[in-house]
């Protein structure tokens, strides 16, 4: 079991002829992902990757030949919102947007379209998701993952890898890791992903990595307290971040008191969530909880 993604999930790559799209399409195939075809407007009829995947001009065209469960978007940020909207219009169930730097105004439109659809969006500005030893959508390095019992969700890319690495090294292993993205507006919130982990029998515990900015961690903390029965280890990055400065991620900026790392850690603890004091204690803290 896993959440959102397994080895059967068929995957389309939007932007497959670009350097990023092509490289990661191949990486996904090498990991065993069921990547079936790609889309680049104007490049229909070409083939891409060592597997000679077909390239189409649009998702609509691709769907005449393939049944598509999910799409991953490697498109320059100024065109990425339209790529997401195209996927929503074509009723793709799972949309993963890797692109970083999409204007907020464009994401407002996407969010509104998403609310009126049945699609799930992960990202943008995220590493995507990976189900250990089955499939990956996005850019997470596959070799660090090992099957096990811990679900991982994170607003940050490299911190997702760090958490996976620690969880694997303490011997627990993982089910699915989801990088939800570092932008102010993202498709799936922490609560959205926690709901999937709640329903997944294989997942025995969850690592939840947040950071400064916004209030998503605070809402997730309250939700966990009232709805979630599995152990959760959290870590919040940015305890030393100054107020009013954007720390790399467009969404990582403290504009009010409740958005600081300290405030979030306090609420998480009050809601019964274990908080790792430093980034290097994530794996150990989870092992301790599971052994109890």
């Amino acid at each position, binding site marked *: 079991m896993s959440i959102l993604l397994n080895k059967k999930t068929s995957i389309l790559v939007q932007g497959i002829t670009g350097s990023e799209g092509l*490289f990661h399409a191949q*990486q996904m195939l090498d990991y065993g992902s069921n990547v079936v075809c790609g889309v680049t407007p104007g490049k229909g009829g070409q083939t891409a990757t060592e597997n000679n995947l077909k390239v189409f001009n649009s998702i609509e065209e691709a769907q005449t030949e393939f049944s598509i469960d999910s799409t991953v978007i490697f498109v320059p*940020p*100024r065109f990425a919102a339209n790529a997401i909207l195209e996927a929503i219009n074509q009723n793709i169930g799972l949309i993963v947007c890797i692109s970083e*730097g*999409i*204007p*907020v*105004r*464009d994401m*407002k439109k996407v*969010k*509104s379209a998403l*609310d*009126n659809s049945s699609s799930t969006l992960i990202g943008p500005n995220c590493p995507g998701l990976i189900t250990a030893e089955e499939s990956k959508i996005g*850019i*997470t*390095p596959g*070799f*660090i993952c090992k099957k096990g019992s811990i679900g991982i969700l*994170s*607003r*940050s*890319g*490299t*911190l997702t*890898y*760090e958490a996976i*690495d620690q969880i694997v090294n303490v011997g627990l292993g993982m089910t699915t890791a989801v990088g939800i993205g*570092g932008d*102010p*507006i993202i498709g799936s919130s922490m609560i959205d992903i926690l709901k999937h982990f709640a329903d997944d029998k294989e997942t025995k515990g969850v690592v939840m*990595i947040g*950071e*400064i900015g*916004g*209030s*998503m961690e605070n*809402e997730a903390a309250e939700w966990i307290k009232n709805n979630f029965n599995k152990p959760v280890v959290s*870590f919040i*990055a*940015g*305890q*030393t*971040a*100054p107020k009013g*400065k954007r*720390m*790399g*991620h*467009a*969404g*990582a900026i403290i504009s009010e008191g409740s958005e600081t*790392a300290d405030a979030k850690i306090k609420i998480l603890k009050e809601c019964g969530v274990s908080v790792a*004091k*430093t*980034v*290097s204690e994530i794996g150990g803290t989870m092992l301790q909880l599971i052994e109890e």
Partner: protein
Amino acid sequence: MKIHEFQAKELLSNYNVPIQRGHVVYSSNEIEKTIDKVQNEFNSDAVVVKAQIHAGGRGKGGGVKFCPTTESAIESANEILGMNLITHQTGEEGKLVNQILITEALDIEKEFYFALMFDRAKNADVFIVSTEGGVDIEEVAEKTPEKIIKAWVNNDTYPLEDAINTIINSLSLNSFNDAFEIFKNIYNCYSNSDCNLLEINPLVITEDQKIIALDAKVDIDSNALFRQEKIAKFHDTSEEDPLELKASEYGLNYIKLDGNVGCMVNGAGLAMATMDIVKHHGGEPANFLDVGGAANVDTIKNGFKIILSDPNVKSVLINIFGGIVRCDRVANGVIQAVKELNLNVGVVVRLQGTNAKLAKQILDESDIELISAETIDEAAKKAVGLVS
């Protein structure tokens, strides 16, 4: 991207939002001519001289002066232009005033606070207004939160019309026929210009019953500048930290802090977590630096150049999680960069991920002095140890 008050007012004016009018002065020999022009053009003997810097708190710092006479205007303008203005937002070093705005003086009856921004929790734009204008709004929010009124806008759930009516009612502007139009225009300006924030503090009612934006503070979504060509030209690089500016030219994400442990990390979240663990072990991070997903010799070399331009830095901690990038390549990149740049501070390197063991071997066997570490914890301790 922050812009100046006079630029923000130009944006508002383009959307027919009434503003306190004025002209900008860049050099002292334009002062007298411009004061004369403002007095005649706007029929106002008294003028206001306002320093144009990005930081707030200009009034308290002495950067805004009401000048009842021509003589006092000339005196204040000469004083403020070129001054080093210190406010609670500039830090102790202050900010050089390169340009001033000379405006008409208005007879004010009431002052309001007004702002538009995006509320992430509600997934909607939000109008924030208060009858307590012209003062520090954070203080109002803390002491009298009931005086802050919010009204949300979102295509699906909260119509713009409802939000505008809410703020008109709460500010008792019902008798002003143009109020609705003005707020609608401000919203369009905010939305079409890709603003992260549009703040007017104060928005005033004059004695002759006009609604006017006395000040304006705007922050533009940098990711949208490709379609905001005119606004992109408002970019004032003199307002930025020179090191942060140089880093952005290299495509690196750098923010200077006050400590002495330089940090070079791939990924924003891991970079923050690295700063935090330095602090946890009793050190102070000198900076935030995200070298991006694909760390190579060039990004590491440029990262070193930026970090070491800060004279406070006494040790450097490199923390890279090699995903797609192989750690052995990063290790070779670090060695090459250290050799070429002739470093004279201690460097601690922690590489994790693809080929991490091989990387550690390469670092340990190299003929340059590098301290390798396996975990972030160990790396942070060692880097802090070098400076204490």
